[in-house]
């Protein structure tokens, strides 16, 4: 039941970030809104449930994007693995962890994308200022809004129990 609920929520987020957010952020500076969910799944959901959901999300995003197929799945799985690794050392409910992880996740996603672009030989045509502007804007947005998303996801199991 909760799995279907997560699918519904993430589907709404995908629609939000592909059809609604671009109407308000025409300069394309907003971050991937599924990153908070991937971090949440890594921190708080069981392995089988979290991983299957993450792969499904990556698949949907790969189909909707012009990026090389599999890039989103790769990013999400690595991010998920990173989040699971992180909670072996840190307390997932800690305010500092919640505050920074989404921003770090966004940074990680961008680094992985840029590495892929470099590997595909397209880096020569991206100017340094575009990279700095694009990444810093996304990370800042993630820093200030990401914790709210993460906190919202953390309330879902409680709401479902009621």
């Amino acid at each position, binding site marked *: 039941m909760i799995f279907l609920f997560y699918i519904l929520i993430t589907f709404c987020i995908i629609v939000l970030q592909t059809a609604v957010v671009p109407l308000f952020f025409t300069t394309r500076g907003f971050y991937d809104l599924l990153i908070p969910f991937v971090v949440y799944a890594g921190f708080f959901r069981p392995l089988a449930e979290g991983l299957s959901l993450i792969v499904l999300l990556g698949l949907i995003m790969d189909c909707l994007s*012009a*990026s090389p197929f599999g890039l989103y799945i790769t990013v999400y799985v690595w991010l998920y693995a990173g989040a699971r690794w992180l909670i072996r050392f840190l307390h997932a409910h800690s305010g500092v962890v919640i505050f920074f992880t989404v921003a770090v996740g966004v940074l990680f996603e961008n680094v992985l994308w840029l590495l892929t672009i470099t590997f595909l030989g397209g880096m020569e045509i991206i100017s340094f200022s575009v990279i700095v502007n694009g990444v810093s804007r996304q990370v800042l947005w993630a820093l200030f809004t990401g914790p709210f998303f993460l906190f919202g996801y953390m309330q879902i199991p409680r709401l479902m129990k009621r």
Partner: protein
Amino acid sequence: MVIANIVILSITSRRHHSASSPGPVLIGIVAPFQEGATRSIHFTGDIWRHYFSLVSVARENDNLRQALARAVQENNMQRETTLTNQRLRSLINFTKTISDKQVAAEVIGLDPSFWFRSVTINKGKLDGVLKGMPVVIPDGIVGQIAKVSGHYAMVLLAIDRNSAVDAFVQDSRARGIIKGNSSEQYRFKYVLRKNDVQVGDTIISSGMDGVFPKGIRIGHVTDIVRRNSGIFQEVTVTPDVDFEKLEEVLIILTPPQGSFPEAK
């Protein structure tokens, strides 16, 4: 008693306007109180009336605000309709310049990633759209169909790093490849140093790539770098299409020549 009273009244009535009568004094004493009382009553009356009138004014104000909001909304809708009408008219005029069959589509979604550029449109296989077909608007080239489903398709924008369009300078006919770089400008690559290219020159499609028809606008030259070494010059082109404001596009229903097997 009655007779005495009548006599007194007849005497006093004759002295009605006498200055020595106590009337003016008494009036002078009483009148200020009367005035005070009257003003107080008027003041209270005014407050009472104004309170009610304020209530009614507030209600009227609310009604007027609602009416204004409705009018503004209607005005916006009419303005939007006018703009849509203008865009569609220019699209219709543009279709007359293209000999091939086309289908109009609406942009319904944008690429979720920052580094890749594509849009989703509401026309697909069932509308005759195939992978590789060119997508244009009156301002110029938009991109190419990259993925198709039954009713929807994904357009790889010409500004994406994976896009390339064979093009030439409209005046000098200097030829090169327009390459996207996911920012707001194209690179016009493989233009020979000996070719004459000037800032402001218009770049159009050459039709040699087998995808885009010849002569469709792409952009205009905004920067040229000619290095001492090398056989090519580095040309930056600013697109004529505003990719952030795409709403309606035209898909030219001509299968590309040989690029995609499924298009055949």
